[in-house]
């Protein structure tokens, strides 16, 4: 039976974080009940048999703004329309400051078995700079409450490369992060995206842009320190204790099939990528009328699919298996990309043996330069 990953997007936040370029709205939380209805409508419309759902992921936005019963309703709709595997990984993203122990207990009982907390930083000033709604105390409390509520698969998100952060401060913070004892960690470099508050601040000179050298240093330190603490890096931005890598996200990187539900959600299957409208109103109107919102479709040519396979596969520490590419695309990487591979190996960005291609530590920092070389000319 086909394996399927389900992604459910919850595009609501209390406020917009300064760096945020995700599909989300601020201050429209009153419309959440309508959205849950619409979402359940979509789940019904996109009912699917013959596929086994191995993972479910509530992403956002801020999914923890949903009440536990809303989460429960959504999951019930999923189970009514899809076959959900025994022991499926069911993750919900939560923001500190939006949750308490009781809420988390209810989630846990409702079937959520993995919690991903958007901590981002353990420094009050930095959290403020990022425009987060929580402080350090709420972050620490959230971790404790999650444990108390019985979550034994906890993931924490952090941001590195903040302008002006000293490497010493980052080392100290990493020690604190490790002390929190989460099973899974995601570290993302701060990027200043167009249209965000940070971009605005940078434009008027109120903020320095992140320094790529300092960012690279923080990354290298993190790799070293986390490895010493027993975290295994399995993807450019992700670390986990043995057995705790995110099965849901692995689906994206390995070219597996996934179905995205909700406003702005993305799906992939049968060589086609779909994107739902990012406009919340359009989404609500369509489903209010009982139809699916419009999907943008992109049919991947084999060549594009290959470059995506490289771009995604190389993000993983396990790298790209030469045999796997041969079975999927009928080509020999070492033949087709002979000069590129040679160049990248010489530059110290890529490790290559007969069976695998993998990024080196340096390569993980310069991933784009590597991926580019596998793109169509």
């Amino acid at each position: 039976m086909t394996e399927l990953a389900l992604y459910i997007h919850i595009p609501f936040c209390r406020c917009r974080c300064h760096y945020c370029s995700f599909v989300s709205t601020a201050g429209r939380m009153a419309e959440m009940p309508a959205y849950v209805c619409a979402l359940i409508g979509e789940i019904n419309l996109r009912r699917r048999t013959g596929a086994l759902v191995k993972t479910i992921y509530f992403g956002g936005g801020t999914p923890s703004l949903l009440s536990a019963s809303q989460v429960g309703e959504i999951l019930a709709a999923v189970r009514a329309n899809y076959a959900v595997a025994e022991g499926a990984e069911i993750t919900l993203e939560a923001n500190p400051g939006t949750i308490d122990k009781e809420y988390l207990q209810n989630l846990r009982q409702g079937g959520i078995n993995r919690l991903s907390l958007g901590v981002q930083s353990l420094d009050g000033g930095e959290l403020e700079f990022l425009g987060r709604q929580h402080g350090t105390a709420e972050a620490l409390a959230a971790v404790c409450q999650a444990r108390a509520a019985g979550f034994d698969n906890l993931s924490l998100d952090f941001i590195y490369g903040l302008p002006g952060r000293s490497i010493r401060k980052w080392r100290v913070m990493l020690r604190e992060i490790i002390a929190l004892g989460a099973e899974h960690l995601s570290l993302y470099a701060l990027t200043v995206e167009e249209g965000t508050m940070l971009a605005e601040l940078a434009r008027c000179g109120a903020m320095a842009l992140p320094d790529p050298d300092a960012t690279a240093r923080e990354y290298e330190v993190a790799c070293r320190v986390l490895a010493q603490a027993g975290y295994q890096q399995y993807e450019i931005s992700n670390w986990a204790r043995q057995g705790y890598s995110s099965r849901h996200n692995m689906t994206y990187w390995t070219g597996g099939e996934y179905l995205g539900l909700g406003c702005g959600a993305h799906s992939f299957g049968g060589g086609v990528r779909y994107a739902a409208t990012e406009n919340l109103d359009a989404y609500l109107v369509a489903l209010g009328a009982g139809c699916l919102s419009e999907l943008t479709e992109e049919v991947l040519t084999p060549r594009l699919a290959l470059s995506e396979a490289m771009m995604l596969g190389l993000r993983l520490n396990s790298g790209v298996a030469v045999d796997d590419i041969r079975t999927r695309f009928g080509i020999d990487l070492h033949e087709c990309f002979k000069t590129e591979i040679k160049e990248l190996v010489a530059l110290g960005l890529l490790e290559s043996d007969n069976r695998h291609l993998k990024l080196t530590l340096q390569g993980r920092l310069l991933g784009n330069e590597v991926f580019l070389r596998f793109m169509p000319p």
Partner: protein
Amino acid sequence: MDQKNIRNFCIIAHIDHGKSTLADRLIEMTGALRPEEMSEQVMDSMELERERGITIKAKAIRLNYRRADGEGFLLNLIDTPGHVDFSYEVSRTLAACEGAVLVVDATQGIQAQTLANVYLAMEHNLEIIPVLNKVDLPGAEIDRVMAEVKSVLGYGEEAVLKISAKTGFGVSGLLEAVVARIPEPKGAPERPLRALIFDSHYDRYRGVIAYLRVIDGTIRRGDRLRLMAAGTEMEVLEAGFFNPKECPVDELGTGEVGYVATGLKQVGDCPVGDTVTASARSAETALPGYRPAKPMVFAGIYPTQANDYQELREAMEKLKLNDASLTYEPENSPLMGHGFRCGFLGLLHMDIVYERLEREFGLSLVVTAPGVRYLITKTGGERITVINPSELPEPSEIAIMEEPWVKVSIISPAAFIGPIMELVRASGGNHRNTHFLGIAVGTEGAQRVQLDYDMPLRTILTTFYDQLKSRSRGYASLDYEFEGYRETRLVKIDVLVNDEMVDAFSRIVPPAEVQEVGRALVHKLKEVIPRQLFAVPIQAAVGGRIVARMDIAAKRKDVLAKCYGGDITRKRKLLEKQKEGKKKMKNIGRVEVPKEAFLSLLKTDF
């Protein structure tokens, strides 16, 4: 028409002083076009010229003028190019005229290029009618500018007309003056044909269209003609004039101005300044003053993408059809690949060619630093010319090196003399003359000065003009003409990017400036070359000796963080964009250099 009723003249004016507006008024007032037919400024025909506010292609327009007493005249208004780069073209235009209307903006005063052209007109014995234009403006300083005209050109107030090309005020008086003051042509109708080519352009259907002034004899449709210098034979497929619409006629008589369609394939076959005569009955001597167009400034032009070379070649061929002064020869650079070493009349000409290649032909190009033609006598006695710095022999092989000098004349308000003198001195100029124009009347600082210098052409090729403008708050104007070759001692400074010499970046400079230029070059390159995947040393060297060095540190980070909610497409699109960007780069060895780097290096200030 009888020569006694023909007047041939041109308008000499600085950019924006009102030449086009005046021409429009003249056309309108002589009824050549009804007002509703007037498109704005009909004489500037090329789009590019219009944008830059300059006129390159001279054209002639025939005006039918009826004097107050009822006598009819045929006035030929010939357009002159206004920029120093085209001074030879200007001189040929002047040679086709008996008179010139000198237009001076009454709010500004005389500018260097105008003056240069007036002197040229005087050398050609043209009758000059000075006019102060824009007298309708409240800012017009009639007394001051009048005094300037008197002091510089010797025309008293009674000889100077006051007009407004915009309102038409004084323009009928000007027409009267043209007829009264400018002499009629005095050619010999019965003698063998002699006509002067003062301009030409290429037409896809009829071949080269030559603009000419008939000095002696007559041109008839169907005549077989010969160019006395070029030796080209051709047939008059069509003859005519512009009014300003094209009007074919059966013949162009003695003293008249018009065009001839020749069927020739490129304007180079029909060089400006050459004399046209009849094949059957040839004139004995050609008209004086012919000089083949000679480029003064040289630069390499390369496509950023090696496989665009063929397209660049075709584009060059097409441009050449219409631009006799452009020269080009294939050039191979180990790093830049295949391109052309091109010769231009001057920097403006170079800019125009570069812009046309990019705009009209959609090419992405890299231009190397402009240079001059050096004459080298080798120690063995052999004499060579060098237009590409990379071909400069080793210092030990050079016995004598000569470089072109130019006579530079700068006109500026007296207030800026200090900074300008400093600039010229720093550029190696020798002072010849300082000349105060007019007497300062009215506002303080109105006093203007003409400064004459001899300078190496090399030193005015990079930023001299920009600096002159900035040091005089835009008020100074510049003109230069070739003076001659003088002995010099210069060295070549090379630039190594990642240990590879980039011939396109080489410069020829005086030994004393080696350090400074070297440092400026590496500094600029460090700024404009993005970080690569490895550290890149940038060095400047003379002979084998490194005179400056800077390192570009390796790029450390370039990776997209998050695949948010499975949005892979967006990620891939970003990569595609990045890949597209790389295509616009020029590879120097393994180093990717944006083409802006080449451009900014041209503008580097030394």
